[in-house]
């Protein structure tokens, strides 16, 4: 059990990273329109985030420096400031979407209008950020979020045509009714979802919250190798559910209630209850992750005192900035904006933040002044450079593709 809890940080980071409300819907949409022909994009993204999360976790453990501190040191205040603006907007947009997502998931369970749930959800998220110990927060959310595995179970229960699924995944082609531009837009969206910068901000700051040192590098690696692939498998499972249930009838997926339909078909009311619990936990975890990341990025850029391991009075500006972020999120949601559409715009800011986040990590992971003997090996560097190129290409192509395809519609 302790071993399982030891990887809670990795699982929570992954859940909040690519199983948040926006990605739940995106995965289902991708499955319903492209089948599993985009599974390779999830794989590429998962390998990438494993690589960089492991580097940033190692840097945080060995040198005691969290990722955004390093970004400012390496890039200087101007370029790091650009990254800060982009990352903060991503965090804020995603936080808004997640709080909205919690409300939507609670609506599924209770049929109470989401706008009534929004202040409740926001208050609950803030109370956890304000008061709960970091380890308790990650253990509970991580454990409960594991119930999303019911999506994978549903894939088996639905008795699909395995050879057809395998063919889609292993020899991907653009489906006849879709355009090449939409295909690549979703490929970048899936890749970007797996590699969203706030995952490394949260993971490396979490490493500091847990006081990891050089002795904990193995634990950091375990967190990464368990958490992110788990998230990737579930992403593909959600897409598979969409491929099995919606693709044959070309049904358009756009709402949360449609996403849980395959699970209900596979396992009835019990499975439905489990998946709703899982979605509430996942969106709650994502709200915590993005809420805390808003605080972490600001505090680390400006050099403020930060951390849940400190009493709030000793990290005053850190907590105040998160309170303000929550208030802005609630205000935006009360205008009845669709939370899921909100996340589509964060793709734009990811385009700026992605390369400016990962380059400094790669550089510092090689710097013996920070890392001593724990610098990157040659294989890690080679893979890191390849991924840096992929990241730059994805970030450059994201906005034009978004415009051309009308955000994938």
């Amino acid at each position, binding site marked *: 059990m302790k071993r399982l809890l030891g990887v809670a940080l990795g699982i929570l980071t992954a859940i909040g990273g690519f199983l948040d409300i926006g990605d739940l819907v995106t995965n289902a949409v991708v499955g319903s329109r492209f089948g599993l022909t985009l599974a390779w994009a999830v794989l590429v993204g998962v390998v990438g985030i494993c690589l960089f999360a492991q580097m940033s976790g190692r840097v945080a453990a060995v040198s005691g420096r969290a990722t955004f501190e390093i970004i400012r040191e390496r890039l200087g*205040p101007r370029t790091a*400031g650009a990254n800060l603006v982009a990352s903060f907007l991503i965090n804020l947009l995603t936080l808004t979407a997640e709080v909205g997502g919690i409300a939507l998931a609670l609506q599924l369970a209770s049929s109470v209008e989401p706008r009534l749930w929004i202040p409740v959800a926001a208050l609950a998220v803030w109370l956890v950020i*304000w008061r709960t110990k970091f380890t308790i927060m990650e253990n509970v959310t991580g454990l409960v979020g594991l119930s999303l595995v019911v999506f994978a179970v549903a894939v088996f229960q639905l008795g699909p045509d395995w050879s057809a699924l395998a063919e889609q995944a292993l020899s991907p082609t653009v489906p006849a009714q879709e355009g090449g531009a939409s295909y690549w837009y979703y490929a970048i969206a899936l890749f970007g979802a797996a590699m969203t910068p706030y995952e490394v901000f949260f993971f490396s700051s979490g490493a500091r919250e847990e006081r990891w040192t050089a002795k904990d590098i193995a634990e950091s690696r375990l967190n990464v190798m368990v958490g992110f692939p788990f998230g990737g498998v579930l992403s593909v499972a959600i897409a598979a559910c969409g491929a099995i249930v919606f693709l044959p009838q070309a049904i358009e997926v756009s709402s949360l209630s449609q996403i849980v339909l395959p699970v209900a078909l596979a396992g009835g009311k019990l499975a439905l209850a489990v998946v709703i619990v899982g979605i509430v936990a996942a969106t709650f975890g994502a709200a915590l992750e993005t809420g805390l990341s808003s605080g972490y990025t600001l505090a680390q850029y400006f050099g403020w005192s930060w951390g849940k391991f400190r009493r*709030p009075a000793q990290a005053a500006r850190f907590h105040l900035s998160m309170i303000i972020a929550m208030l802005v999120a609630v205000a935006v949601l009360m205008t009845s904006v669709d939370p899921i559409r909100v996340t589509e715009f964060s793709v734009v800011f990811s385009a700026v933040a992605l390369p400016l986040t990962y380059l400094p990590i790669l550089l510092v992971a090689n710097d013996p002044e920070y890392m001593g003997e724990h610098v990157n090996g040659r294989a890690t560097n080679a893979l890191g450079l390849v991924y840096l190129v992929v990241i730059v290409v994805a970030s450059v192509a994201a906005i034009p593709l978004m415009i051309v395809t009308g955000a994938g519609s």
Partner: protein
Amino acid sequence: MSPRIRRSARPFPPDETLPEPARPPGLVLDAQLHLLDRQTLDVDGVPVSTVDDLEIGPHESTALHGSDTVHVTGLLYGPVSVTRVFGGRPPASRLHRVDWRHVTDVGTTIRLGVHGDSLDVLWLERWVRDRVIGRIPGGRHDPR
């Protein structure tokens, strides 16, 4: 394109090997590489701020001469983010100064030998603590 010397106007061949200078006794640091934008921690390890600039030479001097020995006299903190983007510099009154004699270590962070509470640069932190966070229930609760 940032200002640079055009290749045709370069005064020296770019690939010449220059002699290595004599190694001076004492720790060698490059200001931009090792001091600027580094996190400053107080004596208890509590973050103070990131170093925004350094003061060299006599206070309020505008020009320095190579014939004089010039020292770094203090670390400077202030609202430079906006001015770095748009140009200019905050007035000296907005820049908080910490004397170099309070510095006890320079590594990946800069450590001071004094408490953060005694530093002007943390006035905003104290203000937010007293006016906002301290007033919310649980604000002074120790999470451990």
